[in-house]
């Protein structure tokens, strides 16, 4: 259990950003994920990749935050991608029937 949520932001190119998330995304921490995500949705950034390979637990508040991200990306004409989901997190997306709604990559780009 990793109750503190940490982030690492990498500029992959002039219009592509990667956000690595480390820790558990719960009702207690999901607001911090939202704070990190929201500023990324600008006209300039065309692709946002959220790396979740170090997230072992995510509840519906985390999923709801990512749903918001997907909607923000549609509004700005960008591309919103999740990558590196752990088995547990992928299972929660499947239970919520959202595993086919998001674009999900197996592993983050180098």
């Amino acid at each position, binding site marked *: *259990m990793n*109750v503190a949520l940490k982030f690492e932001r990498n500029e992959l190119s002039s219009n592509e950003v990667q956000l690595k998330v480390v820790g*558990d995304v*719960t*009702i*207690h921490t999901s607001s911090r994920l939202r704070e990190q995500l929201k500023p990324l949705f600008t006209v300039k950034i065309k692709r946002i990749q959220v790396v979740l390979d170090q997230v072992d*637990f995510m*509840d*519906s*508040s985390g*999923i*709801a*935050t990512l*749903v*918001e991200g*997907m*909607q923000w990306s549609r509004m700005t004409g960008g591309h919103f991608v999740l990558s590196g989901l752990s*088995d*547990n997190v992928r*299972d*929660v997306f*499947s*239970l*919520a*029937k*959202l595993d086919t*709604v998001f674009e999900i990559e197996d592993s983050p780009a180098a």
Partner: protein
Amino acid sequence: MASAGTDDIATSSCGNSLDGKLCLQLESNSDCIDVLRSMVTVMTARAAMSDLRSNRVAIAVDELFANIAAHAYGGDPGMVEFETAIYNENEDQMLIFDFRDYAQVRWHGDIDKITSQPLDVEHLCPGGLGLRLIHSVADCCEHNVLKNGNHWRLIFNIGDGENDECSA
């Protein structure tokens, strides 16, 4: 899924509890979810559940607590009593979690009705997923409206009732 008016609850009324019941009284602050997660980890290990099933149990407990905190108490501090144990009923074993709140808001919704509605993936809105997750992972979710709050019970079958590969 059940809901009924009741004066109060007897949380140990079903079957015979094995030794090792865990009880906790806590405020409905969101950081208490982490405390509940620790208790879930202990109980699912005792029940010899797989990592995947343990995570599903943790999700259900997390979501129910979050619902009580956000909707029953409206984000204000309120008391939640939490109890968990493994019970024997005939030949079956069940892992049971009881939640008791003292909120003025008594929930009168129908979980089955809410969760049976198809998910509108084209018009997703944040929120509303918690009950769906609870419904999809718990073998039973019972709700009783009390005179001074709510009682919720989550039941997870152990052993034969466990199916990690089941699709929700």
